[in-house]
């Protein structure tokens, strides 16, 4: 249980996909102009990550790893198919996204209308493939943890795109120097937010027993921190503008 809690908060805050590893930056920058679309894409990312990471975990465990085929019989025990992981992972993701799209369209037209247009975009979002590849690289030990990892990394991504979309909606009213408008200022704000998120790094550095125990209490503070980070970024840009005016 404790390892679940630890992994959950670690993937959301410390190893945040956008701020620590820059995964899914393309859609993060392209779709963050409005909060409503950002929420739609964020929700779709959570959903697809939570489905594909455990699925790819099963593939990795029973097909790709060295010795993974030993369930077929002892003569297959020393096969190592891990060079196939890229192609298999991406095929799983593309298929799952299509499947999810078809199922959602059939059974929940409402959800399809809000999520549907984002699903095809997601097959080529690096956050999704990155989630599976990091799951493989970090050797996540069980199916439950793999699901947890997919879900919480998705939530981390959602949080990141939501905050940047909110900031970008506000920044429209401020006087950014013309060459920085649009893309440039978004990069710099993201950089400042990433610096803010680095402060979460101290969260899980205690001894093994102390690690997970304080985590649930810390969360409220963290949520405040997220708000603070966001406000800080806002303030930064505001003071920047004032400086320009002066």
């Amino acid at each position, binding site marked *: 249980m404790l390892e679940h809690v630890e992994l959950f908060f670690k993937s959301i805050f410390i190893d945040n996909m956008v701020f620590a590893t*820059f995964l899914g930056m393309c859609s993060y920058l392209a779709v963050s102009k409005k909060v409503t679309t950002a929420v739609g894409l964020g929700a779709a990312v959570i959903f697809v990550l939570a489905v594909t990471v455990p699925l790819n975990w099963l593939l990795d465990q029973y097909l790709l790893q060295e010795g993974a085929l030993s369930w077929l019989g002892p003569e297959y025990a020393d096969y190592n198919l891990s060079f196939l992981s*890229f192609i298999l992972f991406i095929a799983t993701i593309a298929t799952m996204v299509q499947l999810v799209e078809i199922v959602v369209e059939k059974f929940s037209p409402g959800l399809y209308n809000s999520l549907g247009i984002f699903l095809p975009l997601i097959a080529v979002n690096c956050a999704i493939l990155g989630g599976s590849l*990091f799951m493989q690289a970090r050797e996540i030990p069980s199916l439950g943890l793999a699901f947890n990892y997919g879900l919480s990394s998705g939530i981390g991504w959602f949080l990141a795109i939501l905050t940047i979309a909110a900031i970008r909606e506000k920044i429209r009213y401020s006087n950014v120097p013309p*060459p920085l408008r649009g*893309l440039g200022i978004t*990069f*710099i704000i993201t950089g400042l937010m*990433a610096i803010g998120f680095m402060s979460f790094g101290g969260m899980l550095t205690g001894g093994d027993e102390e690690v997970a125990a304080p985590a649930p209490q810390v969360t409220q503070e963290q949520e405040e921190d997220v708000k603070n980070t966001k406000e800080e970024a806002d303030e930064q840009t505001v003071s920047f503008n004032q400086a320009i005016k002066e």
Partner: protein
Amino acid sequence: MALLSKKDSNLILDPLADNNPITIQVLGICSALAITAELNASIVMALSVMFVLGLGNVVISLMRGIIPSKIRIIVQLVVVATLVIIVDQVLKAFAYELSKTLAVFVGLIITNCIIMGRFEAFALGNGPWRSFLDGIGNAAGYGLILVIVGFFRELLGSGTLLGFPVLGDPITKTGLYSIGYENNGFMLLSPMALIVVGIIIWIQRSRNRALIEEN
């Protein structure tokens, strides 16, 4: 450029500046930021992308008549994944240390938006030779930004270039360090990559006002 007609040479030169994949088209940001703490990792990444994009564009362009448009994304993914597996295996065989540094980011070339973006925007509608030039050009534009970012991050962050100490030795205090210069370790951390790219965009758009976006 006697080898290439004017139209063809533009295919290579445009992405280097006014139509740069990273700073203007906003494609392929993830890997550009994550692996640029060292210059040689940036160079290897740029070469890998050039290989994948150049060949991938040719393959897609040759198959453009026979790919049904409904399943083209999956076909494109398979082509890229195959090329990326080749790159990954070559790196593992000949540059093992470097492939450890690049880690999952070699695999993430598959979902690098530059690749899919160029397949969709160019290779599906043009012949193989022009597609090849377009692929090389865009990969070069991508590589240019990677090398610039990697250069500044490695120089200011660890005082080396390609692993050679160019500013003197920080421990024995030679070169610049003898007058009190310190490495800025912050440059090696991930947020600074974003800020460096932001500054590059700033400089580029200040020089060419036509590129300025609406707020």
